[in-house]
């Protein structure tokens, strides 16, 4: 059966997220409870979480989460990894046996720093170096798949219901200031854990619900700039779009969101001249990056959380705030189960991104 990536598998989904602006820690059990409520929005063929702030003791090192399908893949990948990074910790990610999750790959995690010498003669900056290494492993090393490569964060995903995946990875042992979660309803079995969400690159993680009809236009736009869309999923291409706009083009996150969900022309025509020119130029330059079709996306990063809805608001996405915390979910019920009396609840409107910044200075060199 074709593996995800060889064919494009359309799917519906559930998404959820919690963030504490002040950096207060939230236990894994809360996010599991939230995503679990939306059990019927997924069909057990994919679930996953992203957690930020779970490795304080390694916060300046890259945390690689890797699936190995066989020992050979394990050995090749480790050989490559130790060559390009100074790895000081290598261990299996602790998991618990859950009967609904079976015959998964061997799951390891490594903490390490970039090998300065090798990075210098690759003439790439640190981020580009890491991205190229991850892309190399995932594209070239058969059976090995790096599904998380950020600092002080990590993704946990598998084929199964999200609440089972949470239990499998014993997420109740982790505390993070930013959680995102995803439950998947693919039309057919992805046949492979790597296909589950969230999708990660550096410390970006994306969970996405919906089916973007502009997928091939976006894919063929982004592939102009060195990206390889190996998974053929919407999340992958949206992540690369954000990465390209923010990292390569240095656009602020909310401007990047404007590019993906640009306002409509009749709205632009009604704007005052300054704005009109800005948005006309924006849509002219980035017409290939406009994302069309129903979607709701939550983008996690060390800078904060961004939630966006498609321009026509064809996909549900609810937001709420309570003190320093912000909650997001495909359904309001998934928020109220973990936060019964939020200060404010609203439905994210089309093409108006919500950005919740993290006010802790996590990184010096950023």
């Amino acid at each position, binding site marked *: 059966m074709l593996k995800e990536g060889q064919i*494009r598998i*359309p*799917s*519906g989904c559930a998404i959820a997220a919690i963030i504490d602006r002040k950096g207060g820690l939230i236990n894994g059990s809360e996010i599991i409870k939230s995503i679990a409520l939306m059990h019927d929005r997924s069909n057990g063929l994919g679930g996953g979480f992203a957690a930020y702030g779970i490795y304080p003791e390694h916060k300046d090192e890259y945390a690689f989460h890797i699936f190995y399908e066989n020992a050979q893949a394990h050995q090749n990948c480790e050989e490559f990894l130790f060559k390009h990074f100074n790895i000081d910790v290598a261990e299996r990610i602790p998991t618990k046996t859950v009967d609904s999750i079976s015959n998964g790959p061997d799951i390891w995690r490594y903490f390490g720093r970039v090998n300065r010498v090798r990075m210098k003669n690759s003439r790439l900056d640190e981020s580009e170096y890491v991205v190229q290494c991850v892309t190399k492993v995932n594209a070239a090393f058969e059976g090995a798949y790096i599904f998380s490569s950020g600092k002080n964060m990590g993704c946990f995903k598998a084929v199964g219901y999200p609440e089972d995946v949470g239990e499998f990875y014993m997420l109740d042992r982790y505390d993070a200031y930013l959680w995102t979660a995803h439950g998947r309803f693919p*039309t057919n079995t992805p046949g492979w854990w790597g296909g589950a969400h969230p999708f990660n690159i550096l410390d970006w993680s994306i969970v996405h619900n*919906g*089916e*973007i*009809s*502009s*997928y*091939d*236009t*976006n894919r*063929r*736009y982004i*592939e*102009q*700039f060195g990206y390889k869309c190996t998974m053929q999923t919407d999340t992958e291409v949206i992540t690369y779009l954000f990465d390209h706009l923010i990292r*390569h*083009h240095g*656009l*602020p996150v*909310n*401007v990047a969101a*404007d*590019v993906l969900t640009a306002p*409509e*022309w*009749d709205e632009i025509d009604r704007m005052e001249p*300054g*704005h009109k*020119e*800005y948005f*006309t*130029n*924006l*849509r*002219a*330059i*980035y*017409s*290939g990056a*406009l*994302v*069309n*079709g*129903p979607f709701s996306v939550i983008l996690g990063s060390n800078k904060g959380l961004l939630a966006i809805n498609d*321009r*026509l608001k*064809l996909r549900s996405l609810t937001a709420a705030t309570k003190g320093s915390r912000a909650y997001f979910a495909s359904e309001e019920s998934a928020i109220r189960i973990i936060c019964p009396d939020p200060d404010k609840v609203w439905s994210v409107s089309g093409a108006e991104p919500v950005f919740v910044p993290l006010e802790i200075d996590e990184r010096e060199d950023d």
Partner: protein
Amino acid sequence: MSVNYIPRRFTVIRDRELCINCGCCVRQCSNECHYFSDDGKTVLSQSDACVACHRCVDLCPTRALRIEKYVCDYRENANWTPQYQQEICRQAETGGVLLSGMGTPKPYPVYWDKILLNASQVTNPSIDPLREPMEIRTILGRKPEKLTVEKKGKSTVEMPPQVILETPIMFSAMSFGSISLNAQKSLAMAAKELGTLFNVGEGGLHPDLKPFTDRAVVQVASGRFGVHSDYLNNSKYVEIKIGQGAKPGIGGHLPGEKVSVEVSNARMIPEGSDAISPAPHHDIYSIEDLRQLIWAIKQATGNKKPVSVKIAAVHNIAAIVSGCARAGADIVAIDGFRGGTGAAPVRIRDNVGIPIELALASSDQRLRDEGIRSQISLVAAGSFRCSADIVKAIALGADACYCASAPLIAMGCHMCQTCNTGKCNWGIATQRPELTKRLNPEIMYKRVVNLITAWNHEIKEIMGGMGINSIDSLRGNRLMLRGIGLSEKELEILGIRHAGE
């Protein structure tokens, strides 16, 4: 004793019951196929000169006329078809190059008809064009690599000049001289109302079109006809015509009889002299010369408008398109081998050039491979017969489409392919005043507006069905296309999967 080796091609059939001998057909046929009997009471017809332009058929008040192919069988011969035999006879008589008009009629594969469109079912919803705004606004011109932003809503990018079209359809180049001023005026008026552009062609600009210069694409061709600073500056954008799909590699020849005083003024050439546009631009012998001309034009127009380069779809098209882009062309127009023409040698029109579908697909992919596709605009030309062709072209990667034959048909053309004779009964491909007045711009421009408005609606309907509400998301969206009856190689060049996958 002259032997008539070539049988007539058509027969005009007159239903005597219906014919009221009003003589309308007699006065309307410029090929003089109809005439009155001596007593002036009955109308007779002689079909030798009939080119099946249907002027008499359409104007006959009692619908008494119809045209029939004149069947005069030769012995069956798949190789030596009657057409080849007759063309040999014609050349045996004239010793000259056979000329003809419009695009090649030869049955080469039409890829548009072998590509199917996607639609949303279950996994992603269609978008209801009655509720959501469907956007087909298209912006042509060179784009910078990225947007530089001071803060949200304030960009500091140095934006090159852009051209905004309210539809991805523009009217392709048809010069004043090959078509009548009235035909051009109709296209100009239609372009103004539709919010799109019409291409003036290589015949210079007639003063009557002054009010439409903000809707005009002006061409700089190898003959440089009518090119001066006013001409360049009073336009929406300037297009350097390197080639034309119907006759790649060769120049153009407007016979002296068609060079009336007005045509000669517009082209700045002596009246009655043949207007020859030479095969190459005699100042462009390599790509760097093209860059020089592009910059010269940009300087002449104060960098206020994009410069387009129009090339015929030939082998190695992808490399040429990429080269033009790198030579500074903001817009590259590719004209497929089925594109129409006022006059072109039959052999070249029917054998030289490649289909626009393949040229467009490979060029779009090559530009993407080099990461510069998003910086320039790609315009496809060469026979779009309906809105589905346009959607497929945009999905293959075109920004916009040049249409010429379709609007002409809307204005009365019946594809008789004898434009080169200058006796067009519909007042389109002629300069004869008694024929050009048959094309009343006030009436005809509305028909063209109706046609394009209809196509726009259809494009929006198809996009809605695909779950797309902006043409930006259709452009280059090859996933929306599926091929049927295409070889692996063809699918690969078109970059689309086979139906069923």
